[in-house]
Structures are given as structure tokens and as C-alpha cells.
């Protein structure tokens, strides 16, 4: 354990960028957990007498077209954005790794079927597929989560399949099998923990991608519903006000969005370093 910790410290010292990403990550988590209590105003309360005010002491990020406080909205949005990406990524992680491990472990027809399924999904440009699914199912938060999960599914399935395949004949699996464990137990308790590290990297990178994906959907009008504060929709809405000079509507949620995605991307890199320093790219 302490060896792990020393390695962590080493990576942090060697790599200030990773350190920065860890700090950012804790900040995001704090905002996600305590955001609603930290926001100075009700993020939904309109005040048309004070609409479109530039940043000031009272409203550090200004107010939007309905007079709502942009700062409060950006802070409150953290929870929803994180929730969407966490939910989507967990779903695709669970489904993807289960399918992938089965494919890698059993091989044969199972492998072929799951392989074709992932190939088919991968054959679509992912954002295009997401657009199609959300507009077919309707743009609710649940559907955005499902869609994001579907398009991320193949990544997990592939990584899990490769990992499981290479361990199928490994000693520890053979030992488990000989000591009378069923396939279910072997997959869950013996394969599972072993494929976790590479999956962690994928999770972190996908978190960022999930946020971007939701924001892109919002931009073309297929995202989260109003008045719910969400970064992507705030940028998309705010974009309409840039030319008329009300830049604060788009910039602040945009910066928050960028920082969150950046954080997960850097974190993914950092985790990769932790797990296997030689893999660093």
C-alpha cells in the first residue's frame, strides 16, 4: 500500500499537470456535492428588471436574459453535468466490461456476436449516432445518459475483451477453475479485479467525452430541458448573445465545461502513469 502511495507521490512530483488535475478534480467534486448550498442566488429565479447585467460584485458572472444569476447557475450545474457523465460512464462500464469479459473468456460464438455488435456501433461517427438516438427517443436526461452509454459501450467491451482474452489461460484463472469455481464466479471475482486498472483510464477519459457529448447535443437543441442549469445548454444559449456583446453568458459556463473536461482528460493520463509508467503518452 505504501509503495502505491510513494508511487503516487512520485508521479505527482514528476508531473505538475497531473497534480493540477487532481486538485481540479476535488474542487469539482466539492462543487458537485455542495453546489446548491454555495450558490448565492436561486439559479431558477428570474428578475427581468436586472436582465443581461455584466459581471459585478453582486453578480460575479453577470445575469442572463431572464435576470438569473449566471454564477449560481454555473455552480449548480456542476452536479447535473457530473451526474450525467457518471451515470452514463458507469452504465457503459458495467455493460461494456461484462460483455467484453464474456467475449474474451468464452470466445467462439459469444465473441463473434459481441464483436459484431461493437463493430456496428463503432462504424457510426459517434456524435451522429448520439444525435439520432436522442432525437428518436426524445430529449430527456435519462435518454441522454442512455445514448452516451451506448456510444461508449464499445470502448469498454474492446478493452475488457482484450484483457480477458489474454488472461483466459493464465495460472490464476486455471487455479480458480480447478478449485471448482463456476464461470460466473471466475468472471466476477478473478477476472474482474484484474481488468480494472486499464478500465479506470478509459473511465476517466470517457467522463470528459460524456460531458462534451451532452453539450454538443444541447447546442443543436437535443439536450437537457430548461430551466435546468447545465453547462452545455448555457453555452449554447449564451452563444446567441456573443455578437450583441453579452459575452458573460457563454464564457463562464464554457470555462467551467472546459475545466471539467480538461480535468478528466488529464486525470486519465495521470492514472495511466500510475498504473503503468511505460504506457505514458
Amino acid at each position: 500500500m505504501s509503495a502505491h502511495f510513494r508511487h503516487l507521490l512520485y508521479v505527482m512530483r514528476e508531473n505538475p499537470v497531473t497534480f493540477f488535475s487532481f486538485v481540479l478534480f476535488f474542487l469539482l467534486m466539492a462543487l458537485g456535492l455542495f453546489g446548491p448550498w454555495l450558490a448565492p442566488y436561486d439559479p431558477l429565479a428570474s428578475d427581468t428588471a436586472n436582465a443581461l447585467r455584466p459581471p459585478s460584485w453582486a453578480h460575479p458572472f453577470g445575469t442572463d436574459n431572464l435576470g438569473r444569476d449566471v454564477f449560481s447557475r454555473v455552480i449548480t450545474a456542476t452536479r447535473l453535468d457530473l451526474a450525467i457523465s457518471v451515470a452514463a460512464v458507469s452504465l457503459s462500464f458495467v455493460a461494456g466490461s461484462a460483455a467484453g469479459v464474456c467475449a474474451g473468456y468464452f470466445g467462439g460464438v459469444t465473441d463473434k456476436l459481441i464483436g459484431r455488435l461493437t463493430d456496428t456501433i463503432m462504424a457510426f461517427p459517434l456524435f451522429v449516432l448520439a444525435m439520432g438516438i436522442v432525437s428518436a427517443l426524445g430529449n430527456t436526461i435519462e435518454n441522454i445518459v442512455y445514448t452516451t452509454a451506448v456510444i461508449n459501450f464499445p470502448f469498454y467491451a474492446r478493452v475488457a475483451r482484450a484483457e480477458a482474452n489474454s488472461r483466459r489461460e493464465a495460472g490464476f484463472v486455471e487455479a480458480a477453475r480447478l478449485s471448482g469455481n463456476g464461470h460466473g464466479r471466475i468472471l466476477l471475482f478473478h477476472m474482474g479485479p484484474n481488468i480494472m486498472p486499464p478500465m479506470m483510464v478509459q473511465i476517466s477519459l470517457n467522463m470528459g467525452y460524456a460531458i462534451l457529448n451532452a453539450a454538443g447535443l444541447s447546442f443543436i437543441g437535443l439536450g437537457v430541458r430548461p430551466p435546468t442549469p447545465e453547462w452545455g445548454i448555457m453555452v449554447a444559449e449564451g452563444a446567441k448573445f456573443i455578437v450583441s456583446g453579452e459575452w458573460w453568458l457563454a464564457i463562464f459556463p464554457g470555462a467551467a465545461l472546459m475545466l471539467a473536461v480538461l480535468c478528466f482528460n488529464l486525470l486519465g493520463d495521470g492514472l495511466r502513469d500510475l498504473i503503468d509508467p511505460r504506457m505514458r503518452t
Partner: protein
Amino acid sequence: MKSDSLFLIGRRLLQAAPVVMGIIVVTFILTRALPGDPAVFFAGPAADEKSIAEIRASLGLDKSWPEQFWVYLQNLSRGDLGKSISTGQPVMEELATRLPASLELTLMGLFLAVAIAIPLGMLAATRPNSLVDHLCRLVVTIGVSLPTFFTGLFLVYIFYFLLGLSPAPLGRLSIIHIAPDHVTGFYLIDSLIAGDFEVFRAALYQMILPASTLAIFALAPLARMTRAAMLGVLSSDFVRTARASGLSRKTILWVYAFQNAILPVLTTLGMVFSFLLGANVLVEKVFAWPGIGSFAIEALIASDYAAVQGFVLAMALMYVLLNLAIDILYTVVDPRIGLEG
């Protein structure tokens, strides 16, 4: 060995067949599940039940799904993708005119990304874990963390609206220019064929901002792959040998290391290309680019089945073909690589 390669290529082609079938089915189901009744949408603002029913019949939407699918397959085998109802043109024709626009933009974006990312990656690889390395990593990661539509809008605001340095975001050519005669559909090439440098220049100006938006998004994977591949090669035995035999740093870097690192970068290029095609949808919307992405958004909003189907199908098939091409290229270039896995 040659027949081996052919055999492998044939097998790879066969492997692609079920995927193509899957794509066709998924596309069909997806478009039928779209909300809104196209018949109602196209009946116009004051239509009544009867005229809506007439339109539904004329679109073939009164038939059952399996029937519609069968008709769709038959048409597809004749290369007929149906007619887009919102633009009134055959979908095949729409795709044929719009695809070059999207491809030209995407390739330009890719070209810019490669031109920046490869030197950046090499720079980072020669000085691993230095300040330069970290900075490179941070910059390219920021690039991939920005939503493309956000980047695009800001570039437009700064370079067109505030500074007036770039032309208006109005697609492939400004209002006063006329498209060159159609040869390849790529304006940059067509204008050169026509010997029309003004149009070439106009088309190039028009492309700078959207292509940069795409490039910013594509830097990260390319720069990182270059860095990783270079690091791997630089620590290999033959580079060490080359260094020991007193070859200059420059020669080692460009002749030995880079040429060996290029293969994984090429693979990444294929992945990045498909990734950009997806991102292109949003960029086209921002820059009013008359490509297939903006076409698809419109079609999706209008529940224009034929158009959505055609678009998604074209995108997916292109990706399958691209991967096939890369795989085949690999077998030809490096016969040690099998087509498994």
C-alpha cells in the same frame, strides 16, 4: 506470400459484410423511430386530414415496417437512396455535392492538425518530462476539452466580428464569388484546375477558421501518439547504435526515429479522421458549411427519413471503408501483421 495477402484481404472484406448489414438495419430502425410525422410536416400550414393522408401514401409511409424495409433494400441495391423531402433533391445527389464539402474541410482540418501536432509531439518526446513536455500536453488537452461549437463561435467573434480579419462565416465561398466548375467537388482543387486563383484564395480564406476549429480538437491524439511512438523508438537499440556510431542528432531524429514512429501515427490518423467527421457536424452548423453534417441536422429536425438514412449510412460506410483501407494498407506494407485482432 502474395496469395496470402489476397486471402487475408478477402477475409477482411467478408468480415465487413455483417457490419454493413448491421448498419443498414440500425439506420432503418433509427429513422423510423424519429418523432413527428413527416406527412404532417410536409402537408403545409393549413392542411387537413385528407391531404395529410394523401401525402402519407405518396411517401409510402402507410405500409408496414417490414414492407418499407424491403422496399428500402431494393432501392438501395439500385443505388437509390430516395428523395430528401425537405430539399426535394435525390439524397444521392445531395450527398454527392455535400460530401466533398465536408471532406475538404475535414481533410484541411486534419492537415493543419498534423502539421502542428507532429512537430509538437516530437518536441515533447525529445525532452520528456520537461516544462516544454508538460506545456505541450496541457495545450493539446485543452484543445480537446473545448466543445468545437464553442471554439468555432469564439474564433468567428474575434476574427470576423471584432477584427474583420477573416471572411464572414457563410460557407465555402463569400457572396461575391462563384463556385468553380465541378470536377472533384473540392473547391481548392477545382479552382486550380480552372486556373482561377482568386476563387482558390477565396475558398482558402473561407476555410481557415472552420479548419482551425477542427484542428484544435484533433491535436491531442496525434501529438500524444507521436510522442509515445517517438519515445519508444528513441529508446530502442538501433537508435542507440546509430547514436553511438556518431550520426548527427538531426539525422537520427528525422531519418531513423521518425520513419519508424510514423506507422502508429498513421493508424491514429484514421481514427482521428472519423472522430473529426463527427465533430464536423457541429462545426458545419457554426460556419454555415454546406456539408453533409449541416444537412443531417436539418433532416433530423424535419424527420426527413430518406435524408437521415442516407447520411448516416454514408458516414458509416465511409468509416468501414476507411478501416478496410487502413488494414489492407497495413498488410501490404508490413506482411508480418495479420488481420486478426
